[in-house]
């Protein structure tokens, strides 16, 4: 069962409530997505840890039913 963009967004937001999440369906096939996630939780964390938090939010679907998700993560700019 492929995942929809809104499902991906919902799962990420559930784990990272403050996050700004933009998901795009790259190929229009419900299988290749890109996501940009901006959350205060990421502040000071190395990129690997930031991505691991997003993968954890997706509960093991990444690499399985979710084949391709190009991911960029960032902390919001300091006010």
């Amino acid at each position: 069962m492929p995942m929809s963009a809104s499902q991906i967004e919902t799962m990420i937001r559930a784990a990272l409530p403050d996050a700004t999440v933009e998901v795009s369906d790259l190929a229009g096939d419900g299988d290749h997505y890109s996501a940009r996630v901006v959350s205060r939780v990421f502040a000071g964390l190395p990129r690997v840890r930031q991505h691991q938090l997003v993968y954890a939010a997706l509960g093991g679907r990444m690499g399985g039913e979710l084949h391709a998700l190009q991911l960029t993560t960032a902390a919001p700019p300091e006010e």
Partner: protein
Amino acid sequence: MSDIRTRIGETVAGNDVFLFMKGTPLFPQCGFSSRAVAILEHLGVEYGSADVLRDPEIRQGIKDYSQWPTIPQLYVKGEFIGGSDIMMEMFESGELQALLTEKGIGPAA
């Protein structure tokens, strides 16, 4: 399980730059692996690679080892750097080149 961890540990310790990928540098079998290879080729560094499609034990083993669910995965001097998105981001910002230089890894002669 512990055998595969040992095998992976020795592999990443024995190669300054090592890429776990789908396919081979000459024939990558996935767009993300292809992108990772293109970055390393562009940087001109020597690197080792393993084709996880030919080795199911490594394919699962490396995901557990790195706590990372996807392939490709880049290791530098035994340290997990990231997948292709992180590689691309670091390459574009110049961080990847800086990291290699800092670790004393230059372009292949």
